[in-house]
């Protein structure tokens, strides 16, 4: 390791390193970033939820979008697996069904970035209590 020579050096190194612990920072204040829950019960996994989750993590990372992607249990939409719930800061969560990687990309581009609604929103059949 070369010595850090001045303050701007230090700031640059900090920016480079920040990604390493970003996940931890975001989990400290999940309400301020996009939260995505991927239903990963048996039916979800069988329908490819794992690939969708990996895709979401990589894609959001690549686009430098602050988000927390968590796996959760069965959300109750077994007919529409894989399902994901997306909660943007300050908004009500939306649940999307039949999400493959293509659909996931669309959700990121249209809903998360531009705020447009996309096909495939499932009617909410539950309320979350915090």
């Amino acid at each position: 390791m070369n010595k850090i020579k001045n303050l701007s050096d230090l700031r640059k190194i900090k920016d480079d390193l920040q990604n390493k612990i970003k996940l931890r920072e975001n989990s400290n204040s999940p309400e301020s970033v996009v939260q995505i829950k991927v239903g990963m019960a048996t039916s979800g996994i069988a329908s490819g939820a794992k690939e969708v989750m990996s895709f979401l993590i990589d894609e959001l990372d690549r686009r430098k979008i602050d988000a927390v992607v968590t796996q959760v249990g069965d959300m109750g939409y077994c007919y529409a697996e894989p399902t994901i719930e997306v909660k943007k800061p300050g908004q009500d969560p939306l649940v999307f069904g039949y999400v493959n990687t293509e659909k996931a990309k669309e959700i990121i581009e249209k809903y998360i970035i531009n705020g447009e609604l996309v096909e495939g929103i499932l009617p909410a059949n539950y309320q979350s209590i915090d």
Partner: protein
Amino acid sequence: MHLLICGGTGCTASQSLEIVDKFKAELKANNLEDEVQVVKTGCFGFCEKGPIVKVIPDNTFYTEVTPADTAEIVKEHIIKGRKVNRLLYLDPKEKEHVSDSKHMNFYKKQIRIALRNCGFINPENIEEYIARDGYAALGDVLANNNPTATIDIIKKSGLRGRGGGGFPTGMKWEIASKNHADQKYIICNADEGDPGAFMDRSILEGDPHSIIEAMAIGGFCIGATKGLVYIRAEYPLAIHRLQVAIDQAREYGLLGKDILGSGFDFDIDLRYGAGAFVCGEETALIHSMEGQRGEPTFKPPFPAQEGYMKKPSNVNNVETLANIPVIINKGWEWFASIGTEKSKGTKVFALAGQVNNVGLIEVPMGITLREVIFEIGGGIKDGRKFKAVQTGGPSGGCLTEKHLDTPIDYDNLIAAGSMMGSGGMVVMDETSCMVSITKFYLDFTVEESCGKCTPCRVGNKRLHELLDKITQGNGTMEDLEMLRELSHVIKDTALCGLGQTSPNPVLSTIDNFWDEYVAHVVDKKCPAGQCKKLMQYVIDPELCIGCGKCAKDCPVSTIKRTDYIAPGHKLASMEIDQSKCIKCGACQAGCKFNAISVK
């Protein structure tokens, strides 16, 4: 995903390092080592339920994890996304498992400033510290090149010494900066000696770089190029992590010559203490570092005038220093907005004793004891009744029910007859005898008194003898008056803080638990049933079936058969000869008919 595993001393003692290795092996076996990061962190504070494993990003908080549980966590949680319920924290009141740390009462009321990185970063990795804004405060301070302005920020923030006294830190720096000499020193006091207090250790183990950064900032402000950490040799893990951190900081050019191109030189050395309580007193600490006997000397001269090697020195406690970088980064206004009028910021307490959630907590000044004990601490163990809480360790006092709603800060605690001290907080329930507790603290101060001044050396010994006499059942009302009088004399005449505060436990318990002292002296009874000499094991002849098991269990053969046969029983009941009984309790433990009780 990140797996954070506690690597503090407490959890390490319960095999947390093995858990780290096991996780790494399990993840490798499942080809997940690239997706899941395993991080050994500092203390989470929830030591009651260690070892702790926290899963990020969902903040799942697993407690009392064993190496054998790792396979299940990987298989169930990481692969299938199902939390392992049996390892989740069980709320003592609701009797329900709590899924993540955000919903645990233990964390809800806490604000973690000094402990911000404990349980969050890997303390042996400087990069994680830098990623958390580490060394940015030092960078700013050096770039601005205005020590007076920096001291002013610390002064305005209202930060006061966290080691016990509560002296304003900014003022301390200002005094040291105004004394001119060819060499000055900044000293970190890591001689944590209060029984039960371990916040300084946890900070050094969990976030050593924050101390290094703060010392460099302090050094720059007062004009010292040399920093010394006085740390107990009993803290091997803290010493190791601090040394690793110092080496890394040197490697990155954050210690050494010309730091960040500012022309400022600063380096840190460690000095080990042998674990004497009095060496936490700054003059004694300095003598010990110089290789002299660890004895205090009269102030003035203050260390800021004539300290280590007769040079101006500034001594700060670990927790005080841990606050410095955040104050610089976030501004004094932010810090001063937390807390009460005269006590700003937060305080770390080591919560111990008869509460459900024992551990290390950081709360804003001004929080009430009730919130700390009943919300964060989860209430008294086994549903027993709260009796008292001891704050400030051997120098502090006992507070009772009537103080529960007092906001905690330096001045309120002193007004209530106790003190902040370094932040020990021992909660006692109805089974604690206040006279015995006081005797315990005096045991400690008698042992730790350096012996230099007579009030402390002889006076505390006499206090201890009087307390012993009372617990033996030989006390008189004159003894109680004597306790009070002697305490005041010691307070007024002892040389250093140790002696001046050692009678505090006596005075506060006499004030708050006078009836209990009187019960010991006049009725010869210990209401809490703790003083052996004052209790009697008694057999209820109506319940005793005369089986004779107690007589066999008795190691000194004091139990004999009487000639009374209770109605409905076939054998005569047993009886204890009180003059020979050694109160070991073996008879009571062995009786299957609950016929033996303590009176």
